[in-house]
């Protein structure tokens, strides 16, 4: 079991959340080239270590937030709300 610190609801079981994936900057769809868009969609760092990633609190406040998580130990470090 892993606890995730929702900035609005506090620490909750990871089962309440949906994993969104590594945080990235979404290119502007109006100006992005196909190559940029596909790289944004498909290519991620997949590090063995700390990663910044987004979660969605589906069974709670239904808001998105960002955490830092270690992909080997699953230790979670920070939480920040996302607008």
């Amino acid at each position, binding site marked *: *079991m892993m606890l995730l610190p929702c900035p609005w609801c506090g620490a909750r079981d*990871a*089962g309440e959340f*949906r*994993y969104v*994936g*590594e945080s990235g900057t979404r290119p502007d769809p109006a100006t992005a080239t*196909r*190559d940029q868009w*596909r*790289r944004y*969609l*498909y*290519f*991620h*760092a*997949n590090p*063995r270590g700390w*990663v910044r*990633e987004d979660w969605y609190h589906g069974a709670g406040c239904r808001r998105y937030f960002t955490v830092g998580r270690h*992909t*080997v*130990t*699953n230790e979670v470090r920070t939480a920040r709300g996302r607008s």
Partner: protein
Amino acid sequence: MPTRYSAWSLIRHGVSGDDWPPILRQHDRRESYDVVIVGGGVHGLATAYYLAADYGVRNVAVLEKSYIGSGGSGRNTAILRSNYLTPEGVRFYDRSVKLYEHLAAELNFNVMFSQRGHLTLAHNDSSLRTMRWRTEVNKLQGVDSDMIDPDEIKKLVPYLDTSNTTRYPILGALYHPPGGIVRHDAVVWGYARAADARGVHIHQGTEVVGIDVDGGRVTGVRTADGHRIATGAVLNATAGWSTLISDMVGVRMPVQTFPLQAGVTEPVRPFLDTVVVSGTLHVYVSQTDRGELVFGASVDPYASYSTRGSLEFAEGVAGHVLQLMPALSKMRLLRQWAGLCDMTPDFSPIMGPTPVAGFYVDVGWGTYGFKAGPVSGEAMADCIVNGRPPEIIAAFGLDRFTAGRLVGEKGAAAVGH
């Protein structure tokens, strides 16, 4: 040269009581190899075997950081089948099943391939529709695959609850008679032994920590114990760890690593002689020759390199299996484990050359790559020798993601196997 296994050698060893020779020899590392394969799973070992057996390329090293088969190849649920959804996929996996059918004879190693039939259950209209589609694609490719109704399902697997009063009634199934299970460790050991016999060096306990590139070409690899091995061709066959290896040469890959868990029960008398899969319930079940039931599910819900088992898995798999076969409620789960899966966006592998000359990948095996070991080894050996991918893997190149030519196996791979 290791001794050939035969009825005669069995009797001779039985009478003399001599030890069997180890299946692998230990070698000193050479300064350089024609081909260095990173990863001693079924993919790396099969590639080494076909390089030596089909092309006479014997100056090959397989570098494995732990022991051979310590990755996904020793942790999977060993289901083999070829009833995929895309023509590219069906052709490819079918070649693998064909190679598996003759593998024991080819490798002189009993891999215990049991073609007991594979059953994918449909619990709703959309699964039935996808299955009809799959059946037609399969038939067009000459693969034995058909839809059957609940009465026929009940005859094949009497213990399945085919009543229509369950939460997810069984409406039909995709039946694939050539599918089945294999002894996964035997496949790993068989390829390793046959590659070793042809002169391939298999170095266990040898971790690759760097790859040297000069002028856009691979020139060597570096190992954790401070050695450098010169080579002009490196194959990344490390499945769940594959982005870490590609990062060493700056090749980005659309791969995310997810744990996948499996579990096994105490052994009982044989009662289940087909492989049963339910995509809707995210569960698959088969019975081993020893009588244990092997359970699998879908990948953990978030990316990770952790191989810890979870209570959520045990709870989920037990609940789902009981929906399918309520009679199993008294059985005990003996143990559970996890392995790492390299997931791609389209559930198809990534195979072939990369922008770095001499750096090849055979990755993206997700939850379904064990069955592809033989065909991948054959195709990657061809690709390395001829410098370009053979037809059978042409659709699986790394460039498909930026070119927008995905090979969507998603519909067929909800539970992977």
